[in-house]
């Protein structure tokens, strides 16, 4: 098992700042980061896959953590930003699932299962969702799920705090606002 790890100094053999997460992140403002995720997850090509996966049983916590981990790995924002915006993204996904009448889960069971088991379970559900996507609907949404699978293998599974940090409280309030006008009557 020990031999599976990198040898001392191995990191120095790679080009510095080659990985996306080694560079300065593209977004440094938490509000902008929230809007980035909202925009991305609301894209119809991605939104349908996200909702199907929630319907299959992927908890909102895992979907949130996966989306944030992918963004960090791609150098979109830092881990610190992830910690700030996690409750807002969680809230956004939850509100969207409610609007779509999805029978969603917040988490797996009562928290008695190990993180390793949680990861495997989440990966299994993501893979199932990808497999059951008809070929003609394979698009950015299935790519997103593939990236979630990769992210889920290593991501943190700490509970997402329910309190909204002050930096993003305005955006969080706006997310919860009910639609106004004609759409609200439907």
């Amino acid at each position, binding site marked *: 098992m020990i031999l599976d790890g990198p040898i001392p100094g191995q990191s120095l053999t790679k080009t510095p700042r080659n990985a996306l997460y080694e560079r300065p992140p593209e977004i440094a403002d938490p*509000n902008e980061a929230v*809007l980035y995720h*909202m*925009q991305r997850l*609301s894209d*119809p090509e991605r*939104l*349908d896959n996200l*909702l*199907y996966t929630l*319907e*299959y*049983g992927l908890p909102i916590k895992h979907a949130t953590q996966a989306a944030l981990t992918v963004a960090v790995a791609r150098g979109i924002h830092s881990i610190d930003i992830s910690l700030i915006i996690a409750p807002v993204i969680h809230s956004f996904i939850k509100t*969207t699932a409610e*609007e*779509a*009448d*999805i029978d969603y889960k917040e988490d*797996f069971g009562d928290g008695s*299962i*190990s993180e*390793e*088991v949680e990861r*495997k*379970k989440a*990966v*299994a*559900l993501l*893979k*199932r969702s990808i*497999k*059951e996507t*008809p070929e003609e609907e394979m698009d950015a949404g299935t790519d997103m799920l593939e990236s979630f699978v990769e992210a889920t293998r290593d991501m943190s599974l700490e509970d997402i705090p329910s309190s909204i940090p002050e930096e993003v409280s*305005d*955006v969080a*309030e*706006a*997310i919860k*606002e009910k*639609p106004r006008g004609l*759409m609200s009557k*439907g």
Partner: protein
Amino acid sequence: MGRNLRLLGNLAKAYVEDKEEKEAAVAEINNAKRQWLFKVGVEKIAQRKKVMKESSARISRAVRLGFDKNAAIVLEARGQLESVLTRVDKLKDNPDKNYSRKNVTKMSKAILENVPEEKMAQAMNYAFDLGAQESMDGSKLIDIIFSATDEASMAEAVDQVTNISSSRGDGLDPVPLNLAGLTELDPVKAEQIRKNVTSRIAPFLGGQFSAESDQYVFDDPGSAAVIVNKAVDYIKEKRSDPFFQGDISDVTSEVGDVIEELTRGQGIPLATIADTFEFGTNPSEIQVNDDDENDDLNTTIKPPSSIIDMNNLATQ
């Protein structure tokens, strides 16, 4: 004082403008999302839910028809449960076909025994051992597997489960099923099989047709009867084999060819054939000579299907 107030006023104005800007951006995204949800999304999700429900319903229906639940899930994963159910319904509705639940059970067992990825069957058995008995579907299966405490076996199971749940058959290729095997052979057809095989092998067993008695007369009737019975059993077994994909007349020809080879080709006495030869995949060895030490003198009789070309072993 007035300057400070003006500064504070500007800051407040900037804050309000910034807040309004953020709210507008969020509202724009939310509106676009809701528009998609109400126009397309809800319908698409309902469609997906319907597909999931249909899959569960097919599995339940198969269980009501006598299929083992594991076997039904395997067939569903292969994408062939629907067509199997349609054909089974036709067999069931036809009184001439003698649909048999006993044979359905046999086919279920064979399906599970022939799952190409044996770990997948293990995964399911594992789940069922853990208590999966009702409303089994992919997600339930996953839930049950994850309630396990043995992490090593669970990890194995999960990898397999990810190959199960597709209704489009990903990860598992369909297998050809012999649905005739779900029906019982009626006595008239069974008698027809006996007649056909007897007339095919009688010449090699020293049999002569007697018009008077309307049947074959053999020099060694005891041995001939044993061989004919074994041949008939072999053909019946083939007919009820869940994976047999051929014609019964071809099996009859195969039986004839084997008997011809044994009697005329190798000149083995009928009594020896009757005592030791078995058709099918469990060949028995016929010792023509009692000298076990000398292999060259021993004649081993095997069905054609079990003969391996020793020269090609390297390529197997």
